[in-house]
């Protein structure tokens, strides 16, 4: 008993000290969870910014859960539906997840700042019919566009088509280059509905009918589908990308482009920092303006938004964090270090300095920023449409079947129309 007394005493004192000194602080600390995916170094940059935020706001601790892009599209919706989602997440399918979004407007100190700087993009994040909510901000504005292996063009001795060249001009040029330098992929398009629409909008598709509902298969759409189909037949595009997977699976050509096997690669601005890092001095590459068609030379806008969710138990703290991250100096630093095209109108107007960018990267970002100015209103509307991914997925799934020879283009058109109607009906079932 004599031996046990000092042990018990010291235990009791430790407990008291923990209650007096550690207790209140620990109890007052709010932990927020942010789910995040990265294409390049933006996860590191965000982690750094969150650390700085915590130094200034000791009462809020943010846990950054870095996950693969696939988890954002497939797991996050289930988590949110079950009420087990994070407080915030970086998402691409903003329309699809808009029903879970938290309206930050009543919690923000200066909602007008958000309206004026993120205004056009807020519509992408709002649930249908909602016109006032502020669910989050854009971590970047992306612009789809082609990267070209300049070295392969030089080796082939062929001049690159000019700024207003059509898709057909580029297809002809890259096929010639690939033939001369023995590159297996003259033209590569990410197997993604979003990228397909970079062509389709330029080819004049309208996407929506007079009643505002989607009418996907129109003349512009058919022209584009025929182009993609013919390119696969003639060898401009290799079946290995669009024809080697099934359904809605995304398939990029990053590795093939990095290995100098692709002459022209239609992807987008988000790849810039990755290519700068992985290609290095292996060959010269450039970003070129989106090729043109009867509908113009439009790219597809896109991007990722950091969205707050209404399932959060700490809306005030979430709003404080969002205000910090969306503030002009912090966001400017984020865009500059992550090498992103700004999704903040004020910063876009002022222009971002990219101090770490190499000349290649700076030039590419300049091209993408210029492309952003030429984006068609149809492209903006399509991107902002709540069910856009239903359309995108139906298109690649069915067109993929036609490309691999399983169905005809006409059958693919019928199936796309049916798939879109069926899935929208399923979503609207109450």
């Amino acid at each position, binding site marked *: 008993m004599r031996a046990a007394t000092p042990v018990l005493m010291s235990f009791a004192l430790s407990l008291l000290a923990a209650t007096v000194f550690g207790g209140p602080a620990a109890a007052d600390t709010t932990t927020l969870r942010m789910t995040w995916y990265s294409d390049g170094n933006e996860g590191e940059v965000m982690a750094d910014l969150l650390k700085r935020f915590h130094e200034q706001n000791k009462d809020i601790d943010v846990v950054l859960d870095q996950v693969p892009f696939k988890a954002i*599209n*497939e797991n996050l*919706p*289930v988590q949110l*539906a*079950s009420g087990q989602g994070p407080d915030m997440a970086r998402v691409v*399918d903003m329309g*699809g997840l808009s029903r879970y979004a938290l309206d930050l407007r009543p919690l923000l100190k200066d909602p007008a700042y958000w309206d004026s700087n993120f205004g056009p993009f807020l519509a992408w994040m709002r649930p249908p019919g909602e016109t006032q909510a502020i669910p989050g901000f854009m971590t970047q504005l992306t612009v789809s566009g082609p990267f070209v292996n300049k070295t392969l063009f030089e080796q082939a001795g062929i001049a690159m088509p000019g700024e207003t060249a059509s898709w057909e001009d580029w297809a002809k040029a890259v096929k010639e280059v690939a033939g001369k330098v023995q590159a*297996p992929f003259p033209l590569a398009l990410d197997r993604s509905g979003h990228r397909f629409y970079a062509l389709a909008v330029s080819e004049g598709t309208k996407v929506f009918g007079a009643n505002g509902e989607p009418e996907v298969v129109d003349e512009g759409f058919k022209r584009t589908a025929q182009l993609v189909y013919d390119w696969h037949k003639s060898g401009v595009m290799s*079946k*290995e990308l669009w*024809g*080697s*997977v*099934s*359904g*809605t*699976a995304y*398939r990029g050509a990053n590795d093939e482009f990095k290995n100098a096997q692709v002459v022209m690669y239609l992807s987008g601005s988000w790849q810039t920092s990755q290519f700068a890092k992985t290609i290095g001095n292996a060959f010269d590459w450039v970003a070129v303006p989106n090729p043109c068609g009867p509908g113009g030379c439009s790219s597809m806008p896109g991007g990722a938004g950091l969205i707050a969710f209404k399932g959060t138990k700490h809306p005030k703290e979430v709003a404080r964090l969002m205000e910090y991250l969306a503030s002009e100096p912090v966001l400017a630093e984020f865009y500059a270090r992550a090498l992103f095209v700004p999704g903040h109108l004020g910063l876009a107007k002022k222009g971002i300095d990219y101090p770490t960018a190499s000349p290649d990267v700076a030039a590419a970002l300049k091209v993408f920023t210029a492309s952003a100015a030429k984006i068609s209103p149809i492209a903006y509307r399509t991107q902002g449409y709540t*069910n856009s*991914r*239903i359309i995108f*997925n139906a298109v690649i*799934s069915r067109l*993929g*079947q036609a*490309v*691999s*020879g*399983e*169905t005809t283009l006409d*059958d693919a058109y019928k*199936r796309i129309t*049916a798939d879109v109607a069926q*899935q*929208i009906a*399923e*979503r609207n*079932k*109450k």
Partner: protein
Amino acid sequence: MTDSPLASPSARGTGAAVLAELGRVVVLPVHLAMRLLDGPMRGIQRVIGARRMAYLFLLPNFAFFGLFVFLPIGINIVFSVTGGTALFPSERPYVGGDQFAYLLDCGSYLDPGTCREDHFWRGVANTIKFVVFQVAAMVLLSLITALVLNMKIRGRGFFRAVYFFPVLLSPVVVALIWKWILQRDGLLNAAITTLGGQKILFFVDPSWAMFWAVFVSVWAHMGFYTLILLAGLQAIPADLYEAAEMDATPRWRVLLRITLPLLWPNMIVVIVLALIKGAQTFDEVFVLTGGGPGTATLMVVQYIYETAFSNQVQNFGLAAAASVVLGVVLFVLTLLQFAAARRKEV
């Protein structure tokens, strides 16, 4: 306790003594617990009778199965008769048999292109094709391998280990290894070009893609079935072979008249397991081909996964209905297999 084998004199080496002590430490609490339970168990037996005690012992396991097998099956059935995109059954509108009607709406079941949900039927057709080729190849190759490994050959233990090794690998690892071998710049194409041939795009041609899906699956799982057949072969009494040898019976006749008939129960196990596993194939083929090109290697389970999870509209109802259809088919197949086995035994 002193007469326990653990404490026998033969066990009293240095290491053995330690093991014996350890064994006693482990056994003692179990022994005590058993003694404690003894009284209540006798009481229960007195009340419900000895025969009903069997059900009492089955109950804990049944509760476990109920929670993790029967409850999910029940939830799946509920989802199959509801619609919409909500996750919780209470928020999902009842649609009756609509999901099944949509799924089974076909002009001709032999032509998936005429079906409303053609992806499901393409998955069904591919799965049947996959199962037929895979089970045939699997049974034949496993049998040949088991017969050879049952012979007195040099390095028999080594070969048995080698054939079993792929079974230990994760299906995803298996698929990735073969993807590296088969892709455009993979090992196989490197070998082909070194020999002066042209690169073959294995995952672009539908027939090649299906061939490799079957091949990789057989490669990965053959060891398991070989082991089952090997166990069956070793259980055949040696005196039957000795008698056959004394009669100078030809080898092929020994195989047909002694080995195969006596191996039949093991063959049934192999066929049933291969059939069920084949129909459930997903991960290997998904990683290897992604279901492509087009939908040439899209399996039913991949269809279910994509419909429920990877499409933007996560159609749990349709996926659940497809799961029910698959479950029923598997159940019927298993019953048929068992009926066939029973008839053979009679």
